[in-house]
C-alpha cells in the first residue's frame, strides 16, 4: 500500500521536468478506499480462501482415511451380511448400483429436460404457462430429495404402479426398485439439465436462428438441426452436473431402492430394473456409526470412492464446457 505522503512530492516534481504539466492527476488506488471497503475486501478474500481450505481438507481427509482402508478386494466383492467387519465383504454392488441408478435417472432427465428447455426458450407461449413451467422447475429444484422420495413412494405403491416394483402375494405393491428410484432421481437432475440447456440455447445469437429461417426452414427443423447441435456441450454439462447430484443423493436411495445392500433382481423381464439394491451413499450411511452395519472403515473407503466419482464427473463438466462450443462473433 502506498503511503499518501509519497504522492505529493511526485506530482510536485513533474512540472519541473516537463514544462507542460500533465492534466491527469496522480492516481491513488488503495489510499482512496474507505475503511468499510477494505474490511469488505478482506472478508471476501477470507471467505474465498476458507472455502478452498475446507474443500482441500475434505479431499485430503477422505483420501487419508479412504486410502488407508480401500483395497482392490473391497471394490470387487459384494457385501455380505455379517457382524464381523472382516467378513462383511466389499462394496461392488453399491458401486454398480450407483452407476445403474445414475444412468437410469439421467436417461429420463435428458429428454424431458431438453424438451422443457427448448419449449421455454424457443416457444414459451402463452407467457403465463411459461412462467408456470419456470416456477414448477424451481419448485422441483428446491424440493428436498427426501420429500421427493416420500412422494415417489406414495405414487409407486399404488396398485396400478405394480409393474415397476415387487408385488407381494396379497397384492401389496412394494414401490421400491431401481426404476422407481431412477424416476425420482431424474427429478433431482432435471433442473440441472433444463438450466444448462436453456443457457446454451440463449447464448446462440438470434441471427443464427434467422439464418436458418431465411433458408426456408421451419422452427422444428431449425431446432433439430441447428440449435440442439449447437447446444450439445451445454446439454452435456447439465447432464454431467445432474449425474453428480444423482450419485450423491442418499434420501431417495434409502427410501425408494430398498434396504438390501446387494443388487436383488426380481423375476421376469426387466427384473434388474424392478429389483432393489444399494448405492455408495446408502452403503456409507449404513456402515457409518449411525447405520446398522457400523463398519466405519468400509464407510470411509466407500465415501472416498464416491468422492472420486463425483470429482471425476465435475472435471468432465469443465472439459465438456470448454470443448465443442460453437463461437459466433
Amino acid at each position, binding site marked *: 500500500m502506498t503511503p499518501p505522503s509519497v504522492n505529493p512530492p511526485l506530482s510536485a516534481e513533474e512540472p519541473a521536468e516537463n514544462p507542460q504539466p500533465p492534466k491527469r492527476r496522480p492516481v491513488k488506488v488503495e489510499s482512496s478506499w474507505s475503511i468499510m471497503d477494505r474490511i469488505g475486501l478482506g472478508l471476501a478474500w477470507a471467505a474465498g480462501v476458507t472455502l478452498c481450505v475446507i474443500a482441500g481438507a475434505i479431499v485430503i481427509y477422505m483420501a487419508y482415511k479412504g486410502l488407508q482402508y480401500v483395497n482392490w478386494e473391497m471394490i470387487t466383492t459384494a457385501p455380505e451380511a455379517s457382524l464381523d467387519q472382516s467378513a462383511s465383504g466389499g462394496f461392488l454392488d453399491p458401486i454398480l448400483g450407483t452407476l445403474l441408478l445414475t444412468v437410469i435417472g439421467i436417461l429420463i432427465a435428458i429428454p424431458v429436460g431438453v424438451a422443457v428447455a427448448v419449449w421455454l426458450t424457443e416457444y414459451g407461449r402463452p407467457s403465463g404457462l411459461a412462467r408456470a413451467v419456470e416456477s414448477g422447475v424451481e419448485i422441483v429444484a428446491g424440493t428436498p430429495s427426501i420429500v421427493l422420495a416420500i412422494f415417489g413412494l406414495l405414487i409407486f405403491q399404488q396398485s396400478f404402479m405394480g409393474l415397476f416394483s415387487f408385488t407381494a402375494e396379497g397384492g401389496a405393491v412394494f414401490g421400491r426398485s431401481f426404476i422407481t428410484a431412477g424416476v425420482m432421481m431424474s427429478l433431482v437432475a432435471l433442473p440441472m439439465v433444463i438450466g444448462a440447456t436453456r443457457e446454451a440455447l440463449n447464448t446462440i*445469437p438470434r*441471427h*443464427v436462428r*434467422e*439464418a*436458418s*429461417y*431465411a*433458408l*426456408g*426452414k*421451419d422452427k422444428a*427443423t431449425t431446432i433439430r*438441426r*441447428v440449435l440442439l*447441435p*449447437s447446444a450439445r456441450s451445454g446439454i452435456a454439462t447439465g447432464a454431467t452436473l445432474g449425474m453428480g447430484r444423482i450419485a450423491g443423493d442418499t434420501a431417495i436411495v434409502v427410501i425408494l431402492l430398498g434396504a438390501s445392500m446387494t443388487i436383488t433382481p426380481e423375476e421376469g423381464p426387466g427384473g434388474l430394473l424392478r429389483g432393489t439394491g444399494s448405492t455408495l451413499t446408502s452403503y456409507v450411511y449404513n456402515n457409518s456409526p449411525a447405520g446398522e452395519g457400523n463398519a466405519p472403515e468400509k464407510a470411509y473407503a466407500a465415501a472416498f470412492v464416491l468422492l472420486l466419482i463425483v470429482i471425476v464427473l465435475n472435471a468432465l463438466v469443465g472439459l465438456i464446457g470448454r470443448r465443442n462450443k*460453437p*463461437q*459466433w*462473433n
Partner: protein
Amino acid sequence: MELKQDPQSTNGNRVTGEPGKAGGATVPPLRRIVIESETAPIHVSDAVLTPDAFQDPNAGVLIDQEAESVWVEQRMRTEALSIAYGGKVAVNEVSLEVNSGEVLALIGPSGCGKTTLLRSLNRLVELTPAAKRTGRIMLDGESVDDFDVTHLRSRVGMLFQQPNPFPMSIFDNVAYGLRERGSKRPRKKELEPIVVDALERAGLWDEVSNNLSHPALALSGGQQQRLCIARSLAVSPEVLLLDEPCSALDPISTAIIEETIVGLRSEVAIVIVTHNLQQASRVADRVAFMYLGDMVECGAAGQVFGAPAAERTKEYIGGGFG
C-alpha cells in the same frame, strides 16, 4: 464522365417522396423530378455536391459499363409498404422495385428503417411479434403473403451482419438448405454438384475444396461470410438480401465480398443495406436513401451520389448527419 443509366431499367432515375415531417423536424419540401436516363446523362463534374469520397470516377462508371451487358428485370416490388413496431412507424409508405441484374443499395442513418424494409422482403420481420405491416410486397407478380413462408424464403435469400455458419461441416452448411425439404433426404452424392457450384459462385471453392468436411466455424470471418453466401445460393434464390454483410469484416475480406456481390448480380437480384457510402458507391447500380422511415430518394448510383435531388440526401452524403 458520363454515367449512363441502363435502358432496361424501368425504375430509372426517380425521386419519390413527399415533403417530409420526419421525426418532427421540419425539412424542406422535395421537388419531384424525373430524369430520363437516355435523354439526360448525368455528368459527375456537374454534380452540385460531390463529396471527395465519390470523386473516384472509376467507381460508378465501371459498374455502369458492366450494367449494359446485364439483363435487368423486375423481381420484387413494394407498394406503399409501411411497417410499425407497436405505435412506432419504422417504414412509411415505401414503394420500391428490386430488379435482377442490378445491385440496389439501401442507405440512410441508423434507425431509418432500411433493415426493417429489407427484412420485410422475406417476411422475416414477422418474427417480431409487435411488427405490423401494411401495403403490398410482390415477388414475380404474386403477393408474398400468398406464398408459403418457407417457400418464399428459399426464393429470397438473406445474409446477415455477422457471419453465422451453422456448427457443422462446410459441406453440410451449404447443403443445409437443400436437405429436409421433403420427406426424402437427398444423398450426399446428389447434393455434391450443387454444393460445389454454390461455393464456386461465392468465390470460396478454391480455398475450401480440400477440406469440405472441416467445421465451418474454423474458417476466417471473411470465409465464413462467403460460406453464408454459398449457403444462400445453393437453394437458387431469385433475390438475395444483404444486411450490412461486411460490417464485421476487415478491408480485404470486404473487398472480396464486394467483388462476389458485383459478380452475382447478373444472376440474382441483390439488395444491400449498408452504412458505408463508399461501399454503396462501389457495388450498387441503384441507390435508395431512407430517412426516418421515408424513402427520400431512389435512383441510379451515379445520380444519387453525384447529383442528389433531395436536400436530405445531400446532407447525408455530405456528412451533414448520420
